[in-house]
């Protein structure tokens, strides 16, 4: 019984030894799917790396990347932050109904600079209509579900300022008010991800119709395939593992012939082709959003032989991946470029493709941070 008073020693010594042994014996992953990054490899150990200290530094990184029960500890820390009052410590708020919201962007400087690039780009294109939509952030649209204490989402203010700088050659479609209305009834954004749901993209597709001159299909024209177990990037960042997953819906037009669609992906050396908007092999991962057009690629060409319209160039971030399948119902040929990877002049591409229209589609958060829009012309 006397030994009981030494329990802290046994707990502490037991803990540090157990951790050390587990570090040694547990198998090591080389890639972290949650963080979407390659984990550190064991550093090279020789006289040179030892004397200049690089081995020591790299070993620290290796230990952190491969610690036993890492995701348990990361989750524990997130729970502790939340309980001790710091909702949003990892840049993500937990709101009502298990909604996760990335914190608002704090700086509008890049946003306005980008407006300038887009304006110049549009002015240079003769007679080709340029449309643009900015997707407001989930926090701004679902403002009633935000936690009581949160930083201000200034989406409305910034979108107005952005729009004013675009000039007359860009036809801007503002979705904010319709989104706010629709969000009261249905889910426009995922709870565990910053992206919009298929329904959110569908709303945008309906709103774009009037400006772009197509008659949108109705919701009943689509079959919905539901895939459960989607844990998005907000979930991975927030590390609040107790939250339930989202469901991804794959909407397909049931009148569209099976062989009408081709999706050709060009990404440097890495090219592939699919016959559906959906890349189902991506569904086996926790993050299922790349099921739409296979995620981010430099250039993707989507052809639909059953559509009536001509060629549309879409300059975009990942939000477009859900929207483009809808647009594809009305354009035979959609060329989708991602300026984060596509480093050629877009104006040249527009000419070369003899495009009938150009659509720029960005989420506000990305547009306020993306410094690649100078590649437009």
């Amino acid at each position, binding site marked *: 019984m006397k030994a*009981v*008073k*030494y*329990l*802290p*020693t046994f*707990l*502490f*010594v037991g*803990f*540090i*030894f157990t*951790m*050390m042994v587990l*570090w040694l014996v547990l198998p090591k992953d080389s890639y972290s799917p*949650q*963080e*979407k*990054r390659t984990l550190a490899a064991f550093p090279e150990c020789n006289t040179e790396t*030892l*004397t*200049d*200290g690089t081995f*020591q530094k790299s*070993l*620290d*990184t290796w*230990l*952190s*990347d491969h*610690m036993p029960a*890492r995701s348990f*500890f*990361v989750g*524990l*820390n*997130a729970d*502790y932050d939340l309980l*001790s*009052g*710091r*909702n*949003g*410590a*990892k840049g993500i708020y937990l709101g009502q109904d298990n909604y996760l919201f990335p914190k608002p962007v*704090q700086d509008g400087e890049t946003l306005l600079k980008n407006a300038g690039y887009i304006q110049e780009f549009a002015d240079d294109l003769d007679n080709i209509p340029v449309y643009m939509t900015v997707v407001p952030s989930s926090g701004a649209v679902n403002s009633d579900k935000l936690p009581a*204490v*949160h*930083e*201000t989402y200034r989406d409305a203010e910034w979108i107005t300022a952005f729009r004013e700088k675009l000039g007359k050659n860009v036809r801007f479609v503002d979705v904010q008010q319709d989104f706010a209305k629709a969000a009261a009834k249905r889910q426009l954004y995922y709870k565990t991800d910053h992206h919009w749901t298929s329904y959110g993209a569908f709303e945008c597709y309906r709103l774009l119709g009037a400006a772009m001159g197509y008659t949108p299909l109705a919701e009943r024209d689509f079959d919905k395939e539901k895939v459960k177990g989607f844990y998005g*990037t907000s979930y*991975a*960042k927030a*590390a609040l593992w107790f939250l339930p997953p989202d469901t991804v819906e794959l909407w397909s037009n049931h009148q569209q012939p099976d062989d009408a669609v081709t999706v050709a992906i060009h990404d440097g050396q890495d090219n592939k082709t699919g016959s559906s908007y959906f890349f189902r092999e991506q569904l086996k991962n926790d993050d299922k959003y790349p099921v739409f057009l296979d*995620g*981010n690629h430099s250039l993707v060409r989507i052809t639909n032989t059953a559509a009536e319209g001509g060629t549309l160039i879409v300059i975009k971030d*990942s939000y477009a991946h859900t929207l483009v399948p809808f647009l594809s119902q009305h354009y035979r040929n959609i060329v989708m470029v991602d300026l*984060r*990877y596509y480093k050629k002049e877009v104006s040249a591409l527009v000419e070369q493709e003899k495009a009938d229209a150009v659509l720029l589609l960005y989420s506000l958060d990305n547009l306020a941070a993306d410094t690649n829009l100078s590649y437009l012309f």
Partner: protein
Amino acid sequence: MVFSSFIFLFVFLPIVLVLYYITPRRFRNLTLFVVDLVFYSWGEPMLVLLMMVSVVINYVAGILLGARRQKKSLSKLILVIAVILNLGLLGFFKYVGFLGETLQFVLPFLNIPILEISLPIGISFYTFQTMSYTIDVYRNTVKVQKNFIDFGTYVSLFPQLIAGPIVRYQDVAEQLVHRRENLQQFTDGVKLFLIGLAKKVLLANQMGVLWDTLRKSGESAGALGAWVGIIAYTFQIYFDFSGYSDMAIGLGKMFGFEFIKNFDYPYISKSITEFWRRWHISLGTWFREYVYIPLGGNRKGLGRQIINMSVVWFLTGLWHGASWNFILWGVYFGLLLIIEKSFLLKLLKKLPAVCGHIYALIFIVLGWVLFYFEDMSEMMRFAARLFGANGWMMSSEVLPTVIAYIPLLIAALLVSTPLFTTIYHKIKWQPLRMVVDNVGCVLSMLLCTASLASSSYNPFLYFKF
């Protein structure tokens, strides 16, 4: 290697504990000495040689002083040489760049080259430790340490090597040779270590995040935000430093050493005089013992005492870093202490205690402004913000962050008072005490590990970035 890292907690410490306790008792200092050198060279692979030079200088000085006890003048010469060598190394590695910059500023036409020398970790601490030994041998208050391993172990003992406490040789001379490790002491050490770790990881680091946010938010924080910011820094520096001292003392206990307490709830002080009796006690003791008293202390009249205090506080400031703001910080406290000595302390005694607390805290917190900003113009800008230069209220951008930190600020406030210690010691019922002990230890272990794990967890939003 810092204590709050995976490499220390889960690799170095377990291995060292095994090595230490399987070593037969009379070789344990050798084991410690070897692991100390590994510990030091982990962060400073080459500069470990510098530390060895320092060890050798003082070891030899000790031997020479011991052999020449009778010849007073020769002893003095040896001491002077040893002190010059010690301070020379410290001066060269810590202050040469600063001296060059200052001379360049004052006498720009001389074109003095400015040397860029990186500061060897812990040099300020181990230099003061070795000097305490040599001076005490000269004063004949300690025996000469003839065993090089024992002496080397004293200087480079890894728990207090890089951030104190500054252990005087006389305080550990006996333990160095005749210590008896035991499970009770080890358990006390574990508890203290985990308290220190929690202070550092769960409080200091978080307060640091708040301070960074508020400092960088500039104008939008207003005066209120600037005050919350500097208060957060006040907590950060205390929990960082005292947490480190707790971990050092706790680790010392695990290897059978007892070091003196380094912090004694400094923020509950009623005067600056009291604050410096409670803050970084080992440094204050060192300066009193080896500078203030040898200069004559308070025994040579008030005029001389003021000069002595000025010298000590100038040096205390300078010791903290090679930059004018640290000197300013030292002189600031020197001045306050002189004012307190001459009349303020007597006045404060007549006033209600709360006046003393408020007075002391305001000047301590303002002192941290001097301490933090090495760049004078930044310091002035921040000081101006404190007094309303950019408005008083916080903007709506900053407010949510501050609100989110209120629970931790309250926790920090309570932990910097003796409240929890007092309550803990009131628990007489052993089972309850044990529950508190063990639950506390487990929470500290898990939450600190979680916090360290989290700081390396960085999800990338996009696959290819």
